């Protein structure tokens, strides 16, 4: 089981790509899906690598994603 998970509020995302770029373990990629505003939000492509460090959360300018460590 991964050390952490991310939670994404899809409708807030503006597809800037910061979280995808700066996730240290490359958990995320921009999806080909659209949210209702026409942006491509991120989705998890390597969830088992997520450490719950929340760097994605710190970078997000739209408060659309955050990471949390799973309870041990």
């Amino acid at each position, binding site marked *: 089981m991964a050390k952490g998970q991310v939670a*994404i509020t899809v409708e807030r995302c*503006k597809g800037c790509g*910061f979280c995808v770029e700066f996730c240290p373990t490359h958990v995320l990629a921009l999806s080909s899906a659209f949210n209702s505003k026409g942006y491509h*939000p991120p989705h998890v492509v390597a969830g088992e690598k997520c450490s719950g460090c929340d760097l994605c959360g*710190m970078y*997000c300018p739209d408060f659309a994603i*955050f990471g949390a460590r799973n309870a041990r």
Partner: protein
Amino acid sequence: MSEAILDVPLNATNPVEPFLRMDRMPHIWCPACGIGTTVNCFARALESSKLNLNKVAIVSGIGCTGRVAGYANLDSFHTTHGRAIPFATGLKLSNPELQVVVYSGDGDLFAIGGNHFIHAARRNMDIKVICVNNLTYAMTGGQTGPATPTEVISATSPYGVFEPSFNLVQLAEAAGASYVARWTTYHVKQLSRAMEEVLHRKGFCFIEVLSPCPTLYQRRNKMGDGLDAMKFYKQVSKVRNGAPTGECALTRAGEIVVGKFVDRERPDYLELLQHQMKETLGNRYADPEITTCSEG
């Protein structure tokens, strides 16, 4: 409205939400604008500072960064262009219990607000100034500001800026600031730590944060989008804590020196005032009890 698309820890909310006026989301900033990132860092700093948030006040000027006050879940003041610092001065002096944070942009703080910046720094007024420097007047369409580097194209310099620009950290140090640091929106951890540090520090503290303006600055100068700016910051930034601020000037595409440059102890304005008054007036000096003068 929280709509997660994956299985998430139950009852999880973004830890930043208690620090924001969620009833006002979404905010007005563009996709990949860095201001939201700085606010994210600020929210985390507020949380880890363990300060009583009833006693933290935020004051902004006018501009894109000026909108931060409206989104922060604190006693907040969106004042006039360039005058956040004198407003903050009055607020702090009447109610010294407050930790007063000025959160504004490069044009607001250093062009129209320049005079107020240098005097508050000179006085070592106990306020914390966070300057989001996107190197332009973004709200009004991307005009040249005093921090816009030479050779940059802007709305009012269509043939390229030829004026020399300010080195904000050098200016802050020269004016007398107790604490001077520069980070970028790439340096989220360091920025958040620096914000937390100043929240617990007395005196005039200044943090410059370089931030992308993809819609205007990046686009006009063919520098890509916000993500390209972030990658650029990562690539050309050098952390040099304690570097002489005179060596930290910014250019269009050159090295960005980041770090904490100044951290010195100086008595702040109120300490100086009280000391002087007590020395000259002795026990005739009446401690200011200003907040009670308006009550019934």
